[in-house]
């Protein structure tokens, strides 16, 4: 094994590892499935080539291509990364909120096929089928020869160093609050949206950074092998990289590197050991390579989809002795259903500084402090001027005016107008099909309004997307399972915290020193909530492993972590033991006393009786009546509605 061979191995490993890290970040961490990934590497390769090569005519004239500016190193590599990143921008329309992930992936796949076709057929662009050759290596102009051994090792060292830098970069992003938002988006994007995460922005960032990493890897590769043609980047190459990431372990960065070594590099190397013979059909060995890769993908997804190194559980130590406190909520909280997670290997401790235990262990600050309301809009709604409110804020926090929701010929909500007053725990009841959940979804922004207006804190928010409403303090919970399954309970809670400095791309890059304080404060708040609801013992379990009732509690706590000014609860007590439900009800009343406004859809009339005032009754898409439960029970049309429904 000569040094040239080793060199080759190292450089290819570095390049593939870099590409795989980019893909793992996009796919494993953020859930963005990019089946066109290879075109970003290709673009980077071509960019580096045309930046480094001399003009087409000067270069012997037998290749035709655009560019050819003969730029010195490191500009071609920088250009490669930039082009890779910029190429992602036109595709951001595919990854916005509304399109399903696998559809977007298909769009990117098709783009890869088509770009390959275009480049192959349109020769003036990048020399078509034959591709570019004689691409100068770095410092070639200075006379360094690619064949000298010292040069080779220097190149390899450079490549490895850059890969290490990329590794550092993706880890920094992933292990920050921003990374947590990415993983939340991956696990359940609708819920992440409703908690204030800007999905378009997050996915765009992932496409661009992944594209840049792929582009850089392409630039390095091209400078080494000095040629680049469409045959090197067919759509199937993306599949190879996906195989590497899946086998190594999606979402695990070391796994991505391992995958890169095993699959692209490993396959190349293994074929050296096969005998060649003229008796075999041509293309047999390369074809079998592909077959083997395909088989590996299928087998791994069947047998071990989490890969060799699964994503590690983020274990966060709770401040003080919280982990051993006895839960107070009765059987619901101590259930067996906290089965140890599947597929977890070593846990990893993250932060925080542990405060000395409080003298009275109860003194965690769990008191709700309402978020300062946004600057009041100029327009004030008629009817909002009455009522005193606190601090001169209007008494009506949330209002619907003639709201209609029509879909598929059915009017789920048929002209609803009502108001929710500040500081109330307002109930919303009605028989099935009344439109309660639909109305709540429109108030939160998860469903669009067919006609009518929604006013929140004086502003018309009818067209405002859900994540922006969340940032204004209007937060909702969901009826069905909506926890982030592959995040721990504590991470679920932390993901909802608004305004964490680490929850932005820039913040993530600045590192723990920058966001550590915010994070520790959030962990303390979360711990307090967990203790209040008796789930502190499950803080570091995957949320997906909890029982139904426990997941409901996580949902409510998570919504509270978002510091809502107004909370929209969609059947929070469904499947919850009556005693626990009453405790939750009491907590909600306490929160209203501290300034929060809550609108709650529920079936349990006992809950309404005890905690809600006023209660709004809906039936068949319209508001029927409003008042206390006692008053409503006395009204015949309310009783009728329930009888018929």
């Amino acid at each position, binding site marked *: 094994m000569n040094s040239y061979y080793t060199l080759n191995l190292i450089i290819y490993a570095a390049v593939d590892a870099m590409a795989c890290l980019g893909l793992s970040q996009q796919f494993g961490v953020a859930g963005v*499935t990019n*089946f066109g990934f290879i075109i970003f590497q290709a673009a980077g390769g071509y960019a580096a080539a045309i930046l480094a090569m001399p003009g087409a005519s000067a270069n012997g004239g037998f290749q035709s291509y655009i560019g050819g500016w003969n730029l010195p190193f490191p500009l071609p590599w920088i250009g490669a990364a930039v082009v890779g990143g910029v190429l992602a921008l036109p595709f951001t*329309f*595919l990854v916005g909120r*509304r*399109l*399903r992930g*696998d*559809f*977007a*992936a*298909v*769009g990117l*796949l*098709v*783009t890869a*096929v*088509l770009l390959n*076709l*275009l480049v192959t*057929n349109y020769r003036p662009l990048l020399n078509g089928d034959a591709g570019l050759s004689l691409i100068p290596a770095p410092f070639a102009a200075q006379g360094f020869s690619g064949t000298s051994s010292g040069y080779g090792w220097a190149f390899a060292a450079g490549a490895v160093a850059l890969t290490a830098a990329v590794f550092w970069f993706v880890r920094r992003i992933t292990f920050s609050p921003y990374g947590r938002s990415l993983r939340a988006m991956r696990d359940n994007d609708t819920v992440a949206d409703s908690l204030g995460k800007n999905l378009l922005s997050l996915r765009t960032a992932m496409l661009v950074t992944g594209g840049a990493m792929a582009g850089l890897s392409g630039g390095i590769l091209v400078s080494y092998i000095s040629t680049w043609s469409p045959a090197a980047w*067919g*759509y*199937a190459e993306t*599949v190879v990289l*996906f*195989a590497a990431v*899946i086998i190594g372990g999606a979402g695990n960065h070391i796994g991505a590197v391992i995958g890169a070594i095993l699959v692209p590099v490993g396959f190349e190397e293994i074929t050296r050991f096969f005998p060649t013979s003229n008796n075999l*059909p*041509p*293309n*047999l060995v*390369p*074809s*079998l*390579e*592909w*077959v083997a*890769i*395909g*088989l*590996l*993908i*299928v087998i791994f*997804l069947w047998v071990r989809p989490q890969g060799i190194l699964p994503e590690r559980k983020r274990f966060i130590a709770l401040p003080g002795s919280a982990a051993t406190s006895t839960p107070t909520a009765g059987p619901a909280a101590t259930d067996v259903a906290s089965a140890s997670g599947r597929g977890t290997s070593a846990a990893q401790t993250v932060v925080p500084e542990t405060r000395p235990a409080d003298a009275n262990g109860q003194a965690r600050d769990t008191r709700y402090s309402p978020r300062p309301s946004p600057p009041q809009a100029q327009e004030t709604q008629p009817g909002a001027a009455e009522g005193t409110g606190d601090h001169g804020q209007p008494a009506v926090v949330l209002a619907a005016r003639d709201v209609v929701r029509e879909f*598929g010929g059915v009017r789920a909500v048929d002209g609803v107008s009502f108001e929710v007053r500040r500081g109330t725990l307002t109930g919303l009841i009605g028989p099935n099909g009344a439109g309660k959940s639909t109305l709540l979804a429109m108030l939160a922004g998860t469903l669009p309004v067919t006609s009518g207006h929604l006013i929140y804190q004086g502003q018309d928010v009818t067209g405002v997307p859900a994540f922006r409403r969340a940032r204004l303090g209007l937060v909702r919970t969901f009826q069905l399972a909506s926890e982030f399954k592959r995040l721990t309970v504590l991470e679920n809670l932390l993901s909802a915290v608004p305004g964490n400095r680490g929850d932005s791309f820039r913040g993530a890059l600045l590192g723990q020193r920058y966001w550590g304080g915010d994070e520790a404060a959030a962990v303390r708040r979360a711990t307090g909530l967990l203790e209040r609801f008796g789930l502190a013992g499950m803080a570091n379990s995957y949320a997906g492993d909890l029982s139904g009732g426990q997941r409901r509690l996580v949902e409510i706590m998570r919504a509270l972590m978002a510091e809502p000014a107004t909370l929209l609860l969609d059947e929070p007590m469904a499947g919850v033991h009556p005693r626990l439900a009453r405790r939750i009800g009491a907590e909600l009343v306490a929160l209203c006393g501290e300034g929060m406004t809550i609108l709650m859809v529920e079936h349990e009339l006992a809950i309404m009786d005890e905690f809600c005032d006023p209660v709004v009754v809906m039936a068949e898409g319209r508001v029927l009546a409003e008042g206390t439960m006692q008053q409503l029970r006395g009204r015949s049309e309310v009783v009728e509605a329930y009888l018929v429904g």
Partner: protein
Amino acid sequence: MVIVSLGMTLIIEFGVQAVTGGTAVSYTMSNGPTLAGGGLNLDGVEVIIIVLSVLVMLAVHGLLRYTKLGKAMRATAANQSLARNCGIRASRVITATWAITGALCGLAGVVFAIDAGSFDATSTDLFLILILAAVFLGGPGQAYGAMLGAVVIGLATEVSAVFIPADYKYVIAFVVLLVMLGVRPTGLLGAPQ
């Protein structure tokens, strides 16, 4: 799931190539008598292809709407667990679905080969774009959408070859696909989101 499909694609496509080598082959066949009418010249084979595709469409429609298997397929697609609780052997239904799909694709491959003249293991790569464009135009999950999309895309690509170099005729399919994904991913026949 899509990833598994891509893996299978690799296995099958390159498995075929491994066995057959990279050379192109073609059918030896005659094209049959030519029919002329209304300005169109169709040879016998082309007429057969057209009739065949209409028959296939009718057969799929009949299968899904009127047969027990077809309804079981729709039920299994809608809610597999519930389907099994009804006694439907979901795995068999799914296998049957794949088999029918495979058969239809195989038939399409033969038709493609007849039309194209010669082919090798990788000729159908570009077909992927056309198929996806057709499906997304009509709406994924809508059988009738796929039929509509196929007709539209087929016509559009061939007509565009009059205006742009033949090598690029697939570009129109590509554009249609991206536009549909961006504007109305549920397709023309799917319910708007």
